[in-house]
Every structure is written in structure tokens, then in C-alpha cells.
């Protein structure tokens, strides 16, 4: 169940990988849509934590172009709903996440990303 909410908060944690390590790039992603309860307050509270450009770019990679490139200053209900869908209803079930810096591959299987590092990759 990798959703963009967690993907947008995740950078690579391999040893020595400290710059340019976000966002992880999806590869061969298989997506499922599943409805979630819409909670506008939750989305509003989340916004300060979200990297907008990374979110828009990643959504686009996954075939969703519903978000504007520039983060709007005013959040109306429609936009909150769009965000809700992009952040909480798109599930990446299979595929990989690849670090743009060190190229570490985090495989996703059954919706669960494998974040385990080999011993030499542990900081």
C-alpha cells in the first residue's frame, strides 16, 4: 500500500546518501484505486509537509495529471478532493522505487516496499 502520502515523505536512507535522495522514482508501477473517506481537515493539515513539485511530478509519472504545477494559495474544496485522491486513493501495488542519487532499488511487492538495507549500506 504505497500511497503518495508516504512516498512524498520518504527519502533514501542508504549509507552516505544524503543529497538529491528524494523523491524516489517509481519504475514498473502497478496501480490500484481504492476509495478512502474524505477528510478535508486532514489534507489541510498535511499540506505543509508535502513537497508540491515532487507530488505533481510523481503523480504525472503514475498517469495522473489532475494537480496544477504551481501550488495554489487558496485551497478550495475541489482541489482538496483532488489532493485526497492523489495522496490517499492511489495505491502502488507492485514495482520499484529507485533512489535518484545512489540508485538503490526498493522493491514493492503486494503493496509493501522493502526498505531493508544490506550491511554495507547501513549508516
Amino acid at each position: 500500500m504505497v500511497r503518495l502520502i508516504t512516498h512524498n515523505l520518504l527519502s533514501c536512507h542508504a549509507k552516505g546518501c544524503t543529497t538529491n535522495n528524494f523523491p524516489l522514482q517509481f519504475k514498473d508501477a502497478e496501480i490500484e484505486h481504492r476509495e478512502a473517506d474524505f477528510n478535508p481537515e486532514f489534507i489541510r493539515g498535511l499540506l505543509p509537509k508535502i513537497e508540491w513539485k515532487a507530488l505533481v511530478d510523481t503523480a504525472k509519472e503514475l498517469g495522473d495529471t489532475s494537480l496544477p504545477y504551481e501550488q495554489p494559495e487558496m485551497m478550495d474544496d475541489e482541489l482538496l478532493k483532488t489532493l485526497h485522491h492523489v495522496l490517499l486513493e492511489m495505491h502502488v501495488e507492485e514495482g520499484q522505487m529507485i533512489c535518484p542519487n545512489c540508485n538503490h532499488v526498493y522493491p514493492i511487492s503486494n503493496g509493501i516496499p522493502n526498505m531493508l538495507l544490506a550491511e554495507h549500506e547501513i549508516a
Partner: protein
Amino acid sequence: MSRPELQAPPEIYYGDIEAKKYTKNTRNQQIQADMTYRALELLNLPPDEPAFLLDIGCGSGLSGEILTEEGYIWAGVDIAPSMLEVALEREVEGDLFLQDIGQGFGFRPGSFDGAISISVLQWLLNAETSHPTSSPPHRLSRFFTTLHSALRNPSRAVFQFYPSSDDQIQLITSCALKAGFGGGIVVDYPNSNKAKKVFLCLFVGGGGQQQMPKGLESEVEEDARARFERRRERVRSKDKSGKRKHMKDKDWILHKKELYRKRGKEGVPNDSKFTGRRRRPAF
């Protein structure tokens, strides 16, 4: 029998069979649920604000299900694939990660509004391999340092765990404080063998404003467990009138009863047309 964490590494101990057994055991479900409620209480989140929480060592989702029930969105990490598989079967709501917390997190600064961890930390006290990155202090430090940065300021992280000595408590606490956390240990029912529970309650930021919570006390040992549960009821009914938004009185009670039945609690009253009606005070 010796403690689970001394028998095998967690991902081996919680293999397919044990993961199912652990999750199906109704007594265990009840215990994990109670401790999760208490951890949430200690987390002291601002009421009426939705929050994004991290469940550290989420296992098959017994703790996470309580988070969902209480209206929180969460992500969970666990090192045991079999436990995560059971979590998938149970269709838990959280985003799951296969992760060794001793390797640290990659979550960006301020990602979570709080974190809980139920019955997990004791697993970090045993070296997994002879590799230097595998020593308990090294693993604890990396864990606490990366967790500290993943939490927003101010916030808290609450861990229920089973230390086997004061030295262990000492080691864990000192690693946490070195990583920048404030806070310390809270012990509920310290004088009861059965009901005693140890919580590590950590603070991020707050400029010394965060108050160390007090442990629960009970004068009569045998009584402790009962009191613990009664207290839970009080807290829940307060929620009902105050914090709870989505579900109201009767629906809420029916929902709770259903949950208790699912967890196999005995003696849950049947639903009737009186369910959820206010009772006249009895004199």
C-alpha cells in the same frame, strides 16, 4: 520459556505460524488494544485535529487497528514479512513498510505528528549479527536519531516495551536522550506483577513545556487490571461526548460492541432498543 526476543531474530520468531497464532489469540488482542489506548493517551495529541502517525513494529496491525478506530491515519513498519502478510489479510488501513528499525528511517523531517510502538523495543537489545553496525547501542542510536527528525516539532513518541533489567531501561533512555528527545519512563501499576506496564514517553521540542505524564496507580494489586479497564471506559465515554466527531452515541456503542465481540471478549451485552440510551441516575 525464555522471552521471545532471546529465542530467535524477530523475522524468524514471527514466522507464518507464530504470526497467525499471535494475531488470532483474543487475550493478546485485548492486551495489545489496551496498551495502544494507553499509548494514545500518553501521546496527548491535540483533540479534534486529524493526525498522521507512525506505528513502529506494527506487526499484524493489532495496534494499528486501534489507531484507525480512533480516526487516525497511519503508516506502519515491521521487520517480519509474515506479520505484514497477516496485516494485509486483515486489510488494515495503514501504509506498510518492510523495515528494520535498527537500520534507521528515511522519512523526511517533520513527517509524522506522533509515533507509537507497542511491545517492540526489547527486540532492539539483541545483536543480530557480529557486524559493528549491529550492536544494540549503534542500532538504538540510529533508530532514535532518524525517528527524532521524522517527527514534527512539537510532538511525542510513546513506546510500551518489556525491559528485562534496569540496565536495559538505562541504555534505551540514554540513547533516546542523546538523539535529542526529552522525556523518560512512565510505569503504570508499578506494584502489580500482572498489570505493571513500562512506557518510554519521548518528547520532540516544546521548549521544556512538555509535562512528564504520571503512571497509573492502584492500592490493591489484584484490583489493578480491573481498574485499568474501568479507566479505559471512562476515557472512551469522554471521547464520545467530546472528541469524537464521526460516530454518535448509539452507532458508536454498537461499533464498540462489535469490535469487542470480534476480539472475543465475553459478556458483551446484546444490542437492544435501549442501547445507547441515557440511563436515569440511580440513587
